[in-house]
């Protein structure tokens, strides 16, 4: 029986982690680009490729603001929200990324009793 293929995961750069943490702060909330910039502390140029990648993986969904731009006299906002799968994958991936960071740095935990 063949093993099922693991779903693709975005490269967990610092910037991607910051974006995911910002979105996970309110996983059911819809954010627009500038809000994500502010929450993640990143410039807009950085976040848009990340959002596109996450959307491509199905971790995010997006939609247009429901206004008539001609009537309002302004362009529409694009809102982004984590999908259910995306939120779960994000939590798991961030946890793994956090674990990799802590084990790469300091001493490896050793079992009690002195065994190497």
């Amino acid at each position, binding site marked *: 029986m063949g093993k099922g293929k693991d779903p*693709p995961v975005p490269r967990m750069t610092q910037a991607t982690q910051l974006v995911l943490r910002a979105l996970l702060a309110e996983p059911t909330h819809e954010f*627009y*680009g*500038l809000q994500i910039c502010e929450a993640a502390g990143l*410039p*807009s*140029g*950085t976040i*848009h*490729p*990340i959002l*596109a*990648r996450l*959307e*491509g*993986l199905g971790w995010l969904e997006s939609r247009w603001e429901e206004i008539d*731009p001609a009537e309002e006299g*302004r*362009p*529409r*906002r*694009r809102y982004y929200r984590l999908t259910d799968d995306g939120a779960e994958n994000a939590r798991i991936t961030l946890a793994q990324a956090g674990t990799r960071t802590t084990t790469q740095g300091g001493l490896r935990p050793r079992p009690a009793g002195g065994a190497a």
Partner: protein
Amino acid sequence: MSATPPPPLGETARFKLEVVRASLDRALPCTLDLYRVLDRSIVRDVIRYLDDALILARELYVGRNLDLGRVIIALDLARDVALALDRDLGGALVLLLDRDHTRDRDLSQALDPSPGGDIFVDLHRDNRQELVERVKAALARMVELETYLSAEGKVAGSSRERSNVAVSRAAARVAAWSVRVLPSADRPRYDEEFRRELQDLADTDAGRRAQFRHAVRLLNRAVSLRRAVMKARSRRAVS
């Protein structure tokens, strides 16, 4: 500065002035880098920034009758020094390579412009100093011009084009360039999204510089965004 008030500036002229200033802002740290490492490629970067600034400054001088004369003279002088330094570095390298190549110590010192490469560095100390001073002088002339234009603008009142425009047209233009990098199918979406971001910035009283910086950051990562949307599309096509 001229006693005659300058003509009102449109967004295009303002954008060009901003690019002149931005080119000088980039040139100065490069010239200071030359104290750390005397690298011909850095000198060439400086020449490129000064060229960019000069082309636009001359366009504005001829087209708009702006008092850019002193800025252009300062840029020309800085560029002359940069070109001379570039020639000297090329000449010095050729001269050194013609020497006896068995003298490894001298050659390695000469090719290594870091502290310790005394022969190479001392040849160009004065030129570097002059280049820094010339670029600073050009920047100072530019700052004087900006101060003069903004003061005149306040005195002349709201007759200028931009007084009724919420979003900086210069920023909108740069954001539009970043959209052009994207695949055609994605352009309408990102065009509207980026325009709305600039509108949001304008609504929060972010100045033209903040909007321009925002747009430049979009442009800087446009290629990365292009790759991301194309990869997302190919993933959707496969699934």
